């Protein structure tokens, strides 16, 4: 639309613009390409001081070292459990809260909204100290709960804030019609509103998934002695050694850690773009 018409007007510059776009895309994608490439290079080529942007003898040795680590499967599973729980539970809780603040009028509504906004600004890392003591007092250190609970709480404000737009977009008339047809409030909530807001929930869940999956500060601080409760970042850090980093292992572990997020992103990509537009537009 707007893009197409601009093209009509400024045709001469278009090819140059497209060439620039492709070059930039290549530069932006290069680190990821290099990561996968290095993960597949045999040990000798990684340690080469004359690195080549290709490899003629790809090997899975680095991946074998990653997967051969004690408990690697366990770490992966733990990461999945933590991120999965946070995504699902925070989506449900945020949906309820977003419905409350967009479709009802009540005292302190605006105050609450401002609070949700302010809550997003809180530097989560600074709260590691009190959270550490909180988890200790409740006997949650070294459990996956110590990772799930804080991430759940920290993903909520942004999720609620973003979902507002989606909930607001569902026409009032639909709600009135549902009530006239005799639907209960719960029925409207779960059988009409929920499916309509679902795309928004997916877009929102990207953020909670990423922040949880990526976390390494809490994983490092709260899982201190029981490594069977560790998550993926710890499996990655193992390959950093004081004398010589095992770059092949680091790149392979990084690849393994990045792929689930990439898959998730590609799956929800369209909804994400439209979702951001919707959330930010008004």
């Amino acid at each position, binding site marked *: 639309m707007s893009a197409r018409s601009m093209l009509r007007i400024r045709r001469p510059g278009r090819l140059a613009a497209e060439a620039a776009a492709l070059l930039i895309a290549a530069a932006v994608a290069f680190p990821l390409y290099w990561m996968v490439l290095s993960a597949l290079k045999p040990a000798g080529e990684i340690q080469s001081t004359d690195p080549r942007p290709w490899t003629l003898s790809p090997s899975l040795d680095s991946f074998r070292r990653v997967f051969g680590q004690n408990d690697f499967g366990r770490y992966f599973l733990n990461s999945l459990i933590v991120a999965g729980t946070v995504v699902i539970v925070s989506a449900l*809780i945020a949906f309820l809260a977003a419905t409350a603040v967009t479709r009802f009028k009540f005292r302190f509504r605006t105050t609450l909204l401002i609070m949700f906004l302010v809550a997003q600004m809180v*530097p989560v890392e600074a709260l590691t*100290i009190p959270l550490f003591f909180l988890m200790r007092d409740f006997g949650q250190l070294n459990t996956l709960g110590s990772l799930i609970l804080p991430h759940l709480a920290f993903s909520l404000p942004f999720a609620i804030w973003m979902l507002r737009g989606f909930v607001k977009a569902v026409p009032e008339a639909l709600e009135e019609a549902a009530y006239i047809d005799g639907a209960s409030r719960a029925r409207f909530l779960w059988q009409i509103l929920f499916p309509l807001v679902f795309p928004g929930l997916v877009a929102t869940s990207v953020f909670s998934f990423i922040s949880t999956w990526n976390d390494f500060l809490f994983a490092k601080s709260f899982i201190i002695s029981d490594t069977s409760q560790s998550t993926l970042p710890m499996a990655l850090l193992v390959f950093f050694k004081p004398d010589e980093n095992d770059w092949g292992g680091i790149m392979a572990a990084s690849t393994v850690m990045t792929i689930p997020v990439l898959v998730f992103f590609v799956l929800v990509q369209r909804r994400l773009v439209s979702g951001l537009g919707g959330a930010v537009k008004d």
Partner: protein
Amino acid sequence: MTANSTAYKAPGTSGAGGTSTRPLRRRPAPSARRSGWTPWLYLLPALVLLGGLLVYPIYQLGLISFLEYTQAQVSGGEPTTFQGFGNYATLFGDSQFWQVLLATVVFAAACVLATLLVGCALAVLLTRIRAVPRLVLMLAALGAWATPAITGSTVWMFLFDPDFGPVNRVLGLGDFSWTYGRYSAFALVLLEVLWCSFPFVMVTVYAGIRAIPTEVLEAAALDGASQWRIWRSVMAPMLRPILVVVTIQSIIWDFKVFTQIYVMTAGGGIAGQNLVLNVYAYQKAFASSQYSLGSAIGVVMLVILLAVTLVYLRLVRRQGEEL
């Protein structure tokens, strides 16, 4: 009601963007159902979680920052004692704190500026190219966006590795170590932060540009406006609400950068030369067991980010945006 009535005035202050469709889309929140407890019931799980895991820890953070709290108190060996502003006095008397604070502000400002410039420029670029190259650039950006901070950091470290990295090879820098010097280490982290945060700005601003009515841009182009002029005089004013959001969001993210600094400069660089407030607080608390000093740094960060938030709220309010 006040929020609703200001909503209709919104377009007046921020340019005439999309005025025609607004009143239709902006149905006010249902005033018919002032239904007592239902909203609070819906809010309950969120409020319980946020109260327990966000508000209470903030309170505790503040509390610890006024106590003497070191390893002895943590293990229960000694009673905690109230220090008043003692911890803050220690902190503000430490020249390293001011140095770190300055570094944090300058580094965050550089990151925000770079991210916004690159993000906006590429968003405009996206509107000028055909579907296939646009998709390619979009996908590459999404890849960078999706990459976890920790793996992004390790990959960038490897790219710039003095021995085995391709960047030094291509630039002919020999075994120049990027993490040895203070500024080159910050520059390296900045590049990584830029790489993983410009996509958010690009995608959001692009979505915003798409929503601008075509005729407006066409008219500007027909009147002979240059691309820069169109951006400055037409797009930017109409995109103002979106630009405010991405700017504030970037400030908040970049001010809180932790993983990149921690991983790429190995916990804050040589002799702490690359510390930012976030990492500084963590190191004080968990590496040297000075929990109260760490908490005091956390409080300082909270106050600064709160100030940013208040500025943001004022901007939003001035535009008359409905909350």
